[in-house]
């Protein structure tokens, strides 16, 4: 208890920055669920591919420790664009290959769920076997720096030197903490505005509310579904950049646990609710850190999931509960 109180600020700031990443990934689950009532379990792989895209981009640009501030910003922006583009592409591909046929044939949701799990394994293993794939295509030598150690962690080039910016309580808030939390908030705000204010956003909300009426009113529901997957992918790409900056490395199977956590965050906040995903992410990140401090680090996940069960017992629809369809602008 004393430990928690003595280090409250440190645990809060690092918990929030982890929660911000959960929240960005959670948005992908919540968006797709809101529109299709489908849990896209392969979303965690969309995130993982983005993290690799970010790592490879900075590596290819020759990013290393000691770069000037201007260069670092350049690297980060390039990584962000590459990760968002790649994640968005994978998300669209996923929709096309794993879901569209099932959706057209009105297959039961359970079938789509199984398809999602299958796609998740296929994508993760493809990344884990990328050295074999490259060898098979005869590109093994050319791509060596990108495919070597395919089953181990790939380190993100150390372009950012962690420096304390200002002191809050007795914790030195670092540039990375600040970068992660503010970028996540900005992305979230942008998405919220997009869904609330634009024509495409209105389409998404309309399809979420009633797909048939929406299409009668002239909303192209296929487009809308694609757009939903794309938005989720873009958010996952942004989360991926923040993840590699904060954690420092990525591995082909990282998506699994992070996906489960992000999904938890989405449910915690109320699945189908964008602001709920944000709140859920932050609550989960904080709960994990406070729980580790109070009970012990080995109980971290237990604390997180116990919290989920308790909250769902009292609020079965999650903290905010309100669905995407009913969201007011």
């Amino acid at each position: 208890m004393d430990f928690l109180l003595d280090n409250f600020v440190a645990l809060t700031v690092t918990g929030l920055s982890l929660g911000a990443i959960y929240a960005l990934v959670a948005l992908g689950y919540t968006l797709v669920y809101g529109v299709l009532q489908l849990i896209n379990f392969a979303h965690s792989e969309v995130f993982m591919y983005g993290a690799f895209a970010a790592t490879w981009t900075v590596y290819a640009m020759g990013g290393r420790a000691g770069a000037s501030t201007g260069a670092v910003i350049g690297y980060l922006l390039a990584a962000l664009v590459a990760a968002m583009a790649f994640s968005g592409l994978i998300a669209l591909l996923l929709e096309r290959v794993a879901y569209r046929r099932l959706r057209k044939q009105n297959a039961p949701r359970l079938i789509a769920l199984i398809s999602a799990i299958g796609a998740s394994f296929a994508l993760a293993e493809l990344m884990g076997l990328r050295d074999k794939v490259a060898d098979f295509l005869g590109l093994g030598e050319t791509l060596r720096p990108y495919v070597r150690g395919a089953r181990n962690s790939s380190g993100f080039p150390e372009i950012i030197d962690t420096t304390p910016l200002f002191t809050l309580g007795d914790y030195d808030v670092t540039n990375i903490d600040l970068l992660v939390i503010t970028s996540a908030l900005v992305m979230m705000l942008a998405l919220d505005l997009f869904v609330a204010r634009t024509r495409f956003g209105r389409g998404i909300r309309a399809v979420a509310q009633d797909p048939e009426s929406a299409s009668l009113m002239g909303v192209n529901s296929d487009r809308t579904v694609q757009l939903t997957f794309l938005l989720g992918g873009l958010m996952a790409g942004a989360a991926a950049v923040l993840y590699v900056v904060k954690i420092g490395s990525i591995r082909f199977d990282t998506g699994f646990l992070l996906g489960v956590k992000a999904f938890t965050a989405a449910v915690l906040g109320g699945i189908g609710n964008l602001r709920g995903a944000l709140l859920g992410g932050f609550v989960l990140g904080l709960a994990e850190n406070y729980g580790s401090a109070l009970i012990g680090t080995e109980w971290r996940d237990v604390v997180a999931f116990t919290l989920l069960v308790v909250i769902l017992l009292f609020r079965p629809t999650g903290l905010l509960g309100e669905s995407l369809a009913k969201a007011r602008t």
Partner: protein
Amino acid sequence: MLRTTMTWRVAATTMAAGLLLTACGGTTSDEEEASDAAGGGCAVSLGFFGALTGDYAALGQNIKNGVQLAIDQYEGDCDVTLEEYDSQGSETAAPDLAKSAIDDDAVIGIVGPAFSGESAAAGPIFAQAGLPTITPSATAPTLAENGWETFFRMLGNDDTQGPAAAAYISDTIGSTSVFVMDDASEYGAGLAGIVEETLGDDVVGTDTIQLKADDFSSSVTKVTASGADTLFYGGYYPEAGRLIKQLRSGGFDGTFVTADGVKDPAYIEAGGSATEGTIITCPCVPPEDTPEFFDAYKQATGDVPGTYTAEGYDATNVFLAGIDDGALTREAMLEFVANFEGPGVTKEIAFDDKGEPTNVVVWAYKVEKGEIVADAEIPTS
């Protein structure tokens, strides 16, 4: 719709035919090999048991390459073939693999199992069948306490590595405030427990992380809040790489000491420049200290030996010496290994009545300029 079904049928038929062909091909070549082997004076097999694919394949491949080199260099009268038992490092796969090894009568010795967990699972089966095993890498002390007559170990266990790591922390680093952390695995928690016990009052805090965890922010806070100037971590390289990176960016600037489970280039890949200057203890001899083996290995594979490659080579040579001595059954081999005394590339080899090596060495390695290099031998009591 009809067309689709037809296409699938054709594809399925083709695939089935292909499978059949492959299956036939496999059988033929097996028979040929068998008859070839029977043509020699005597034919026996040695097995390698460990991860050759999967997440921990790097360690298994290192050892297998040493085993392979020893067999390639062998010039005796017998035909010695290597049987590979790829466990992927999994405890659940180990018993079945062990059964298939004991069912093959030609196999008279096993190099492995490589990990402590799979050794614990497969050990009773080998013991029952009387098939001698020499592990080149499993370090859990309890493995030798089960009364398995077939268990032999080529390296010092964690009861020597743990105190040696503790001695290095107290004597060489001179630290009196140490934080001890582990990953709750059989190996990591066991080793960290021994270090903690040996250091006694110098331990200012402990923490346990989870395998595959990626964010360690609360652990980092615990370490920095404890004021420790040295941290010992018992675990494997994936977590160690992420941990040291986050410790450094979280403001911990003390010495990071860890053990053989981290001694792999993948640790530096994951941890980057944060790994610089970190200490890794290992009951293994630096490759530079075994120049003959080092050169032979480099010539044969074009690569430098990895962690425990030399131990795998030594273990295989014990079996090969047995074959030369006429120990062509499991019973004879077991007796030969138990009484073996002779020089190996890593140490003077001999086993005590529990199967532990009588000579053990523990070395401290250091990360310098992105490479794991030998630092100093740690005296063991």
